[in-house]
């Protein structure tokens, strides 16, 4: 009976497609299918917002959709090959282990490392925790100092704060107004007891690419382990652990069109870097991260990395074109648009714009048909503007109105055009209502106004 329903649905689906927006009947509904009148005006209503369809997705830095080819690689490991890779006694374990090792090689290939140097974890946050806290705890007799930047991801900054509470010293390097660190400042803050330098490769909020090779050279000179959070960089810019001279690298699965919940930590073997494990248990993953390795997720991450290697050039060209289209489209209709962060040393898929004389929250509320994030994505619970933008020296009012557009593999030209149209409309509408903008148009310099106290 069930096979009849399935074959009927399959026949229906493989017949020539007519209208793409007919609501599909699930196999369960096919049994009870009276002709349900589909409601095109139904739309979605959530959190007080009504939109007619799913928003177009321009938030690739938060997460990326799973590529269908990755899903195809993962499904067998959910359906039939569900063994635990650490079971040594039967086929299920053996085939699962084979898949994990194959995925390990795929991840290693993308960063020019050896498969023996890859440890699978639950995500980049766990990798960052292992790197920062694990390294410092291991070498805590001799090394008491950590150098990082002010624009790092929250998990690195939080781990450093935890270390500070335990008695370690942490130097937070400031960044220049384009988001890059000053190499001379890095050099001068190195001490004899520095145990780790942690600088993220591509920033998640502003997209700037730090000078990784130069930092690697400095760390090699002083013989200090170099850790980088390459979650946003993986699959987008070419990564070579030997050129960059990194000892530890955090990688994340769901930023390269893979599944959420998996990540990988690269740990150099020559010279060997040792860490104290943060997850104790049965000694899996060479004792660094105990716990059953999630085979389907790991296979997904491996497939995603292999895809990324094949598609990197094609994607990069396309993303740059789309970014130019977006930026030029917005700049053609609006003035007072500032790109936050360096425009040269930047990953094209991350466009962080600030619109002058516009309030950020109201801009976001009007952009409900576009899924974008404001600059303060990681700190979105609080009202304070993003610490990254503050570190860049951006004014409070500009920091509040920043929007981060994330362009990825699946973004189309029509989506970009629509995003441009919606953003321009909303900004114009808000500026129309703004008395501040009126004053600016009349030529008054806002900074010179003496606001009276009441």
């Amino acid at each position: 009976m069930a096979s009849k329903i399935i074959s009927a649905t399959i026949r229906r689906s493989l017949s020539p497609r007519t209208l793409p927006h007919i609501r599909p009947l699930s196999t369960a509904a096919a049994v009870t299918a009276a002709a349900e009148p589909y409601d095109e005006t139904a739309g979605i209503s959530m959190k007080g917002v009504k939109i007619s369809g799913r928003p177009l997705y321009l938030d690739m830095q938060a997460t990326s959709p799973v590529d269908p080819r990755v899903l195809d690689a993962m499904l067998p490991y959910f359906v039939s090959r569900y063994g635990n890779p650490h079971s040594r006694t039967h086929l299920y374990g053996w085939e699962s282990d084979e898949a994990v090792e194959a995925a390990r090689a795929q991840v290693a290939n993308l960063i020019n490392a050896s498969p023996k140097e890859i440890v699978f974890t639950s995500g980049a946050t766990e990798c960052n925790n292992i790197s920062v806290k694990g390294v410092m705890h291991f070498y805590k007799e001799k090394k008491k100092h950590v150098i990082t930047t002010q624009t790092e991801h929250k998990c690195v900054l939080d781990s450093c704060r935890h270390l500070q509470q335990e008695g370690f010293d942490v130097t937070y390097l400031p960044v220049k107004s384009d988001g890059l660190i000053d190499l001379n400042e890095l050099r001068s803050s190195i001490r004899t007891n520095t145990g780790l330098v942690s600088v993220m490769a591509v920033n998640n909020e502003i997209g700037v690419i730090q000078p990784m090779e130069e930092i690697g050279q400095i760390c090699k000179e002083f013989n200090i382990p170099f850790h980088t959070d390459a979650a946003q960089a993986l699959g987008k810019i070419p990564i070579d652990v030997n050129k960059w001279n990194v000892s530890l690298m955090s990688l994340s699965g769901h930023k390269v069109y893979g599944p959420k919940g998996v990540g990988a930590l690269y740990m150099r073997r020559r010279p060997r870097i040792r860490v104290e494990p943060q997850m104790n248990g049965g000694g899996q993953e060479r004792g660094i991260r105990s716990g059953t390795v999630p085979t389907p997720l790991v296979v997904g991450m491996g497939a995603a990395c292999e895809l990324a290697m094949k598609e990197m050039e094609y994607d990069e060209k396309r993303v740059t074109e789309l970014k130019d289209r977006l930026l030029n489209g917005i700049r053609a209709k609006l003035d007072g648009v500032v790109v936050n962060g360096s425009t040269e040393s930047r990953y094209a898929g991350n466009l962080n714009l600030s619109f002058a004389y516009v309030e950020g929250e109201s801009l976001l509320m009007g952009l409900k048909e576009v899924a974008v994030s404001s600059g303060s994505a990681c700190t979105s619970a609080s009202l304070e503007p993003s610490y990254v933008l503050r570190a860049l020296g951006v004014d409070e009012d500009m920091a509040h109105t920043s929007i981060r557009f994330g362009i990825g593999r699946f973004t189309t030209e029509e989506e970009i055009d629509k995003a441009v149209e919606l953003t321009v409309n909303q900004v114009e509408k808000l500026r129309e209502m703004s008395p501040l903008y009126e004053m600016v148009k009349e030529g008054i310099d806002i900074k010179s106004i003496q606001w009276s106290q009441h």
Partner: protein
Amino acid sequence: MSTAVPPPSRKEILSLFRSFLRSSRQFSDYNIREYTKRRTIDAFHHNKTLSNPTSISAAFADGKYQLQVAKRQALVYYFYSPKVKSIMDIKY
């Protein structure tokens, strides 16, 4: 030992191309549909200049495998497609 498989004929390649486009139309997700269409066209264009018969056969075999992936995933995406379509499908 060399029983060389003859490289695919122009007709076979065109038929594969058309199958890909047909399969891409069946994706219920707007982004994946557009991506599959665009990527197929770009990939076939890029491989048009291949002259070495082994590389042509390899690319064709890879294409056939990818077509099977696309067909499977079109079904999966169909079964799990959301009730409300993407804005891009509704307005356009």
